[in-house]
């Protein structure tokens, strides 16, 4: 292959435009050879270079006094006090997971974990945000089954609890599913590792698995739309080995306990190419590597294949000179490959040798700083508007039961029971709550984590929808009593070369920025997944937000389950009855229409701060945020979680209860507080200019728990539970 000549056909196959190829020639001062062309093609791919989004991502807020590391490193880092830091990032593995769901999802988990532990952190929690096509689509069941098994297969073996995430279904993902994995890790502030390979003459070491032919051009695949030939891309999907990754994790942490490392980075997308050139770039150095020293799984690997392989479970490190033997001992103990494959230099060039010849010689800056940045043309589509009509005569409780048993609103137990969410013995709030909470080992502190986005809002209005995604993550973290600290994001969009789709990206980034600024919730890491388009059909935009917050005392944490009969149910925030883009209109009326709910960030902050203060003071232990499905769905979820019913009361008579109970107005929470405390909570809310209403009591007078009141026909929790729990297992067993 390395003898192959670079023709215009070959250039096109590498996903490079004519202008890009001309730029490569001018940067090199000559034609690239095939190895160099391959290196440029991955480094300049959308996946690695962010060439369509970089100009817009710059507008996002990334700083705060507690932010130690923002975007640009393997993961973001925030200070959580007492010498502890939290390292976290979310990343997509959409394209590979569609082609080969088990391995695609598994290696997505493996990749994001490496991003976190390469910075010196032990991963302590995983969350997965998954979007599949409509249930009726012939592929959906197979994809759900494979993705869930792949996430479990990798994460469970790693011994990192998978504690949260989301699963939803929509026809816009029929041809492009979204698999976004978030990893949260814990490190000490004085033991953080970066990827900047500073200094010349230092040994560059390769550790982990051997290099094979898997995953060649994965980054390029992730930077193009799908067509009917996408099945043929299966060989570009990597194969995961969680056992080796577990060894790599332990070996890296053991080496990191010494002071032998100058820089370290995982080999993720574009493998050896991106790790070596990015480390050299960040360190202001050059690097020379000899491919004959690379541990190889197969015979006759070419230089091209080795540079572009995305074989998993590999790391590149730069050591202090003379520390090679000490490091090698550690990796040998863990039965991993270890090889010194090169040195850092002061030439600012990436030089690759193979079989005694120089097979690539490129300026490092050409691969990174000189990568193209596009100001792609975009169109701002007018947001969808209007309030949808609905049938006022429908029975509220019948609609509630129906909604609780829909694909998006049903219990995802079938999914999370396949994940080990209790390993590490610090998962103090498990799947099914507003945010997952993992205790900081050996302390009373907790990290609250949530992933959120509502693509139906983002499709209606990318700006408002992206704001809402940030606000909802912030609200979920607040609802357990934690202070939201920072965000990682996964921006899933369709083809940026289409002005409509680019317009969605631009508006969504602006919306995120506005919300993150208003809520002091900076973005510290993330990735973009573009070209989620199949045969011209793009996905509904999904800027997925992964939020992390700090809980000062896990002993004062709120959960959503009703805990006592006779508690007063209090709704915080104003209920206006916004039904546009609601789950109700979609599931009950069968239409996806109207404006999405507006987010008033000032009210969001005021209401959330009020609720958090009550939880922190130990005065409220039962809180749920009101989101998809509206108020009555929130109350039903609280009732089911605690197996305690509710008797609703209102001191006014609305014309119709449907907008009250199913509207998706933002900035709302449901609280359950002991009756004797209720008046004080409501009075204090009014004082703080926070809307608060008393909406009845938990429990009731009947033999079995029911939801009832305000003149509505009672519904038993048993029938709600049956609807809520049965949809997904029945579907996965081939039914529905």
């Amino acid at each position, binding site marked *: 292959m390395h003898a192959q000549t670079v023709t215009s056909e070959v250039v096109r196959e590498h996903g490079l435009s004519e202008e890009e190829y001309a730029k490569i020639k001018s940067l090199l001062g000559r034609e690239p050879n095939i190895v160099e062309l391959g290196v440029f093609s991955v480094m300049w791919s959308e996946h690695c270079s962010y060439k369509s989004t970089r100009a817009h991502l710059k507008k996002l807020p990334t700083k705060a006094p507690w932010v130690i590391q923002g975007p640009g490193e393997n993961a973001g880092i925030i200070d959580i006090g007492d010498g502890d830091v939290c390292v976290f990032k979310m990343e997509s593995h959409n394209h590979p997971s569609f082609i080969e769901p088990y391995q695609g999802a598994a290696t997505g988990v493996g990749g994001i974990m490496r991003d976190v532990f390469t910075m010196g952190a032990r991963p302590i929690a995983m969350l997965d945000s998954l979007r599949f096509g409509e249930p009726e689509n012939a592929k959906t069941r197979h994809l759900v089954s494979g993705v869930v098994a792949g996430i*479990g297969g990798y994460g*469970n073996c*790693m011994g990192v609890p998978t504690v949260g995430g989301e699963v939803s279904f929509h026809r816009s993902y029929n041809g492009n599913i979204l698999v976004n994995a978030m990893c949260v890790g814990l490190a000490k502030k004085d033991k953080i590792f970066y990827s900047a390979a500073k200094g010349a003459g230092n040994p560059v070491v390769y550790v982990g698995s051997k290099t094979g032919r898997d995953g060649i051009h994965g980054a390029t695949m992730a930077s193009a739309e799908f067509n009917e030939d996408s099945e043929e891309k299966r060989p570009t999907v990597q194969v995961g080995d969680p056992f080796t990754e577990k060894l790599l994790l332990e070996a890296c942490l053991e080496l990191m306990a010494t002071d032998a490392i100058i820089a370290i980075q995982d080999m993720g997308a574009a493998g050896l190419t991106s790790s070596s050139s990015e480390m050299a770039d960040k360190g202001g150095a050059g690097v020379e590597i000899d491919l004959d020293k690379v541990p190889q799984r197969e015979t006759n690997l070419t230089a091209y294949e080795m540079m572009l392989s995305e074989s998993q479970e590999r790391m590149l490190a730069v050591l202090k000179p003379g520390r090679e033997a000490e490091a090698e001992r550690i990796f040998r103990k863990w039965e991993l490959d270890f090889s010194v494959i090169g040195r850092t230099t002061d030439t600012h060039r990436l030089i690759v040798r193979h079989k005694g010849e120089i097979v690539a010689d490129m300026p490092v800056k050409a691969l990174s700083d000189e990568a193209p940045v596009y100001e792609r043309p975009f169109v701002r589509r007018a947001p969808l508007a209007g309030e949808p009509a609905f049938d006022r005569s429908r029975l509220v409780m019948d609609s509630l039961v129906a909604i609780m048993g829909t694909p998006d609103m049903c219990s995802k137990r079938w999914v999370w*029971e396949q*994940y080990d969410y*209790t*390993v590490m*013995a*610090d998962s103090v709030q498990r799947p099914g709550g507003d945010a997952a909470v993992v205790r900081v080992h050996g302390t009373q502190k907790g990290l609250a984590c949530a992933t959120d986005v509502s693509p139906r809002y983002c499709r209606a209005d990318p700006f408002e929808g992206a704001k809402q995604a940030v606000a909802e993550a912030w609200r979920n973290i607040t609802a357990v009593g934690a202070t939201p600290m920072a965000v990682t994001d996964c921006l899933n969009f369709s083809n940026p070369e289409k002005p409509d789709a680019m317009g969605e990206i631009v508006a969504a980034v602006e919306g995120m920025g506005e919300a993150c600024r208003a809520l002091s919730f900076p973005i510290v890491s993330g990735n973009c997944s573009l070209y989620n388009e199949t045969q011209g059909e793009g996905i509904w935009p999904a800027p997925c937000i992964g939020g992390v917050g700090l809980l000062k005392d896990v002993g004062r944490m709120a959960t959503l389950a009703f805990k006592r009969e006779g508690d007063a149910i209090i709704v915080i925030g104003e209920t206006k009855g916004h039904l546009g883009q609601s789950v109700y209109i979609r599931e009950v009326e069968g239409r996806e229409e109207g404006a999405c709910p507006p987010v008033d960030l000032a009210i969001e902050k005021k209401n959330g701060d009020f609720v958090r203060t009550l939880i922190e003071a130990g005065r409220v232990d039962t809180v749920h945020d009101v989101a998809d499905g509206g108020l009555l769905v929130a109350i039903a979820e609280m009732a089911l979680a605690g197996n305690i019913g509710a008797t609703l009361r209102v001191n006014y008579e609305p014309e119709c209860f449907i907008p009250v109970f199913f509207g998706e107005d933002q900035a709302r929470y449901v609280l359950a507080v002991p009756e004797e405390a209720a008046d004080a909570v409501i009075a204090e809310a009014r004082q703080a200019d926070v809307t608060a209403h008393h909406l009845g009591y938990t429990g009731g007078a009947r033999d079995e728990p029911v939801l009832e009141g305000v003149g509505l026909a009672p519904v038993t929790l048993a029938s709600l539970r049956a609807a809520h729990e049965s949809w997904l297992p029945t579907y996965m067993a081939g039914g529905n």
Partner: protein
Amino acid sequence: MKSAVVVFPASNCDRDAAVALEQITGNRPAMVWHGDAEIPGDVDLIVLPGGFSYGDYLRCGAMARFSRVMQDVIAKAGEGRLVLGICNGFQVLTEAGLLPGALMRNANLKFVCRPVGLTVEETQNVFTRRYDAGQLVHFPVAHGEGNYVADGETLDRLEGEGRVVFRYAPGDNPNGSMRDIAGIINEKRNVLGLMPHPERVCDPLLGGTDGRAMFESLVEALS
């Protein structure tokens, strides 16, 4: 009471076991690497923790059984030293022949993580003496291969000799185990293996403290 936790390459509940042991026994256990020649001589209890020992690619525990330290574990078990195998540790014990039967893939072929109800069937041993006979407890399970299988004769013998120590509560068998068996003990009653995780329910914040009595039993028996 002195304990040791064996660390196989991909053990992942070794820390959880060590935390529970230290909390309840007051002594930090020795963490013993699988490649070591032996378990420290003064150790009363050897714990084989949960995890994936060698990736579980062949059969769970099939490789771990040949690791260097296991030869000493087998020898010490023969001398009457106490051995507790949790989850993957139980799988290793069956592969090593210290307990009868085998752990097959869960009947539904899926990994399962959830709290399950267990009845404590036997309390005449050092591991469960602090429980009441017939007591219902809740421990989480988290495994893909916990489906206990043995021939009828072995099962009859285990039951006849009072060696089924934990059974899944009626209707709560998560993996298809024969006769709802969740944990068994050897003939000399010094080697116990179980699939559920007692070490994950020793802290009220983690959803219960039903696992504490197992470690308290050991402390009581060994003091």
